């Protein structure tokens, strides 16, 4: 009885009496003797709060976070500034501690937030229906595949190599389960090879899956690429970076049936990769096939406006093996963070931020391209991230630049062996011109040192 529990010895006695047993052990007798552990867990004893704090601080200090290193790494998660009001609101107990809103009358706060969030994501993507969020980006792609199979009764996905490697890999993992084939289409100068895509799509294709800006940062012509999907009755699924949707044509206007993506850039910190959320929007036609929670508007018995979980008949707790998805606990708090961030940015700020990213990215791209030993990996248009090639081993260059307090970018080699010399560089509003200039300088120096064989 310490810290988080309250049963005093007196309480225990009274409670055991009421139950009619003489010890708690008796209650555990339903566990057959051989299955009882019979020894303490081999874990350390409890610690005082300040000791736990010190222990975890000490671990945290062994990480080079974006406070310690200037972070040009992106690849789906970005070092955006999360406004202080996001933390202030998401840390309120009333949002932090409830369960999924199964009792709507006492969950109007959370439900209205979902409704507002759905509206925002619908606005961003240009599609009429949004859910209240999924786990994160890549698994949302896999969920879109599952939806497409259900919608088309087909089992084949045509996926651009520009789609995030984690998304492609996750899709492949899931596809083994729900038994679908995944066909990949290559890139040309950073963009999906349109001819190859058209050739790959056929009457058995459930979905064409694109990403824009794609993993190499290039802005795809989604409408043009998507034509092949339309032609063969496949769904067009578009993964996108929400932070670019203030300036880029929304997927909904490009013919997408589903637009989804990693939500982290909106109001969520990096957190070494999670928790964040995935957003998932679709056409009206798919509303009853959507995965995840959806809040809907309704009225109470007195006619007051209110919100509830709508269309629950899609979900596992009602439909069980026939559910449109197995998701239950999702990422409500993270979606709240996104909503607050979006409200804070507002209609103008959101567009301005998109413009700012494009301008600084264009500058950085030009600046880096001018560095000896650095060249562009592709010349296609980009929004907030771009790829370069280094004339020296990428890992070694990154180590050298790290010494100067800079995380220069994401090395492409593991996931794109064809770009073993490639580096993906991301820009946020936190990356100042001075930092970009310093990156250029540091990259140049590091490449030069590697070429000259100087020991680091």
């Amino acid at each position, binding site marked *: 009885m310490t810290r988080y529990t309250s049963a005093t010895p007196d309480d225990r006695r009274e409670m055991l009496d009421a139950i009619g047993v003489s010890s708690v052990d008796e209650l555990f007798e339903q566990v*057959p003797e051989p299955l*009882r552990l019979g020894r303490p867990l081999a874990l350390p004893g409890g610690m005082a709060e300040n000791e736990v704090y010190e222990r975890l601080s000490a671990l*945290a200090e*062994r990480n080079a976070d974006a406070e310690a290193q200037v*972070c040009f790494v992106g690849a789906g998660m970005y070092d955006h500034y999360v406004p202080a*009001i996001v933390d202030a609101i998401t840390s309120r107990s009333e949002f932090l501690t409830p369960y999924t809103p199964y009792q709507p009358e006492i969950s109007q706060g959370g439900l209205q937030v979902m409704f507002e969030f759905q509206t925002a994501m619908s606005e961003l993507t240009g599609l009429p229906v949004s859910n209240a969020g999924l786990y994160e980006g890549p698994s949302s792609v896999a969920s879109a595949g599952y939806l497409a199979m259900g919608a088309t009764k087909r089992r084949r996905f045509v996926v651009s190599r520009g789609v995030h490697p984690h998304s492609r890999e996750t899709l492949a993992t899931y596809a083994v389960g729900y038994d679908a084939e995944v066909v990949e289409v290559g890139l040309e100068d950073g963009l999906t090879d349109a001819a190859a895509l058209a050739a790959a799509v056929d009457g058995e294709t459930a979905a064409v899956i694109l990403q824009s800006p794609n993993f190499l940062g290039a802005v795809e012509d989604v409408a043009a690429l998507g034509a092949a999907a339309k032609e063969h009755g496949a769904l067009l699924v578009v993964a996108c970076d929400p932070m670019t949707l203030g300036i880029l044509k929304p997927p909904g206007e490009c013919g997408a049936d589903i637009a989804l993506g990693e939500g982290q850039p909106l109001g969520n910190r990096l957190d070494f990769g999670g*928790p964040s959320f995935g957003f998932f929007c679709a056409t009206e036609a798919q509303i009853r096939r959507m995965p995840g929670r959806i809040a809907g508007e309704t009225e109470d018995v007195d006619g007051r406006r209110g919100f509830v979980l709508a269309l629950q008949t899609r979900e596992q707790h009602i439909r069980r093996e026939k559910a449109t998805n197995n998701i239950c*606990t999702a990422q*409500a708090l*993270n979606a709240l963070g996104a909503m607050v961030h979006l409200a804070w940015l507002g209609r103008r700020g959101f567009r301005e931020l998109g413009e700012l990213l494009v301008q600084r990215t264009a500058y950085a791209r030009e600046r880096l391209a001018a560095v000896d030993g650095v060249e562009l990996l592709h010349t296609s248009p980009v929004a907030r991230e771009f790829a370069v090639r280094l004339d020296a081993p990428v890992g070694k260059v990154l180590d050298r630049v790290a010494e100067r307090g800079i995380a220069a970018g994401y090395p492409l080699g593991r996931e794109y062996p064809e770009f073993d010399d490639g580096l993906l560089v991301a820009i946020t509003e936190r990356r100042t011109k001075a930092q970009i200039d310093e990156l250029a300088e540091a990259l140049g120096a590091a490449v030069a040192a590697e070429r000259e064989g100087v020991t680091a």
Partner: protein
Amino acid sequence: MALTETPMQAERARTIYEKSKEGRRAAVLPSAEVPEKPLADLIPENLLRSEPPRLPEIAEPEIVRHYNRLSRRNFDLDSGFYPLGSCTMKHNPRLNERVAALPGHARLHPAQDPRRAQGALELMWLLQESLGEICGLPHVSLQPSAGSHGELAGLLLTRAYHADRGEERTKVLAPDTSHGTNPASVTMAGYEVVKVATDEVGGVEMDDLRAKLAENAGEVACLMLTNPNTLGVFDENIAEIAALIHAEGGTLYYDGANLNAVMGHSRPGDMGFDIVHVNLHKSFSQPHGGGGPGAGPIAVSDRIEPFLPRPQVVRREGSNGRGPSFDLEFERPKSIGRLRGFQGNFGVFVRSYAYILSLGGDGLSEASETAVLNANYLKARLAEGRAGARLPIAFDRHCMHEFVLSGKPMKRDLGLATLDLAKRLLDFGFHPPTVYFPLLVEEALMVEPTETETKESLDAFAEAIEKILAEAEDDPDLARNAPYTTPVRRLDEVKATRQPVVRQPL
């Protein structure tokens, strides 16, 4: 002056879009700092958006007010008793939030080179080790994002395990008490569900199990179980069940949603399970956030290990007198692959590891003990008086950390559905138990008090139930029309599904 509405009821819902006014704003952004070019010179016009999304336009003070006021339209764990069965609504320590927010955690990029993220990887490794010990299964992957994701992972592991042995199996057994995510995961993983019946003491009906195994001989890939199950009952036949499944070549999957009953007392691995998921947002105190985030790490036995998702956090012994180091292992040839981006919900890992450090092994074991004590006490309280008569326990035996009542007599005798009771509880300031689950029990009420509740709260809850039943004897409409004092009264859920309005029209 007579009150016609509570202050909150009087404040009608208005969305943030309805508070927007053109030209207002909260964000001030940095200037570009760099030479600017026309946007269309950088990105072809046809790929650009014509109108920005119609996000709200509103200054910061009113954003804060909007969400602060909205927040108070939620009931939360920090306001009162929340005995939502199967959800383990235990206290969420704020220490965990504090350590998760340290910049070394919160601003760490997931693609940071492992050599520069040693603290994070060590923390993940320590959590893996801890969960392995608690589950009695040595290999842990932290990747799954929640329980249901863990289930899917477990089934894909099962598939990979069988495929590796050249087998293809098509059926997964699950008891009729199982949680909805179990069958939904089965379908998503490309299997077919075969239901197994429940016996008179709430466990798996052994004859039915044997029959189903026989019927589907050679086809059964897995049995998914919760133990204690969703009735709060520990299945005493578990060793035999495990033997049967293993004899058939299947895997045994443990839905860890109820792990809070047995931490430090009994381990799924020791019971014979091959794969376990753990809901960190249940037993390990990650706040539920109104529907997430959570995390659903899986622990597995040696024979399943080769198939674990990629990448895996590994510890490498140091050489030349250097200490150990931690890494992400991508080269796992038999791995089922990724289940998501990057390494998982790290922020949740920090919180849960902080919780494990705080309590220690003894504290975890004590937590389970108290959870079981609290549940049995509340069950005893509800076996008295009107509740005892109208809301009998579904399976009359000691429970573990939760128990299930049936509202059938209440409905028959008083005309009160379980839903009515639940709604009336709202007026008494309680979150109701889980209702209408498990499906097996008619008019079910599933009650899980957790270890962090006081005896006083349990008593008050029992008294509220008694009071509601008493008042219903006089006037059943009181409950049938409840709630009265909530921010909105009973809502029309059917309408929201029949004519869905899922976004604000703008």
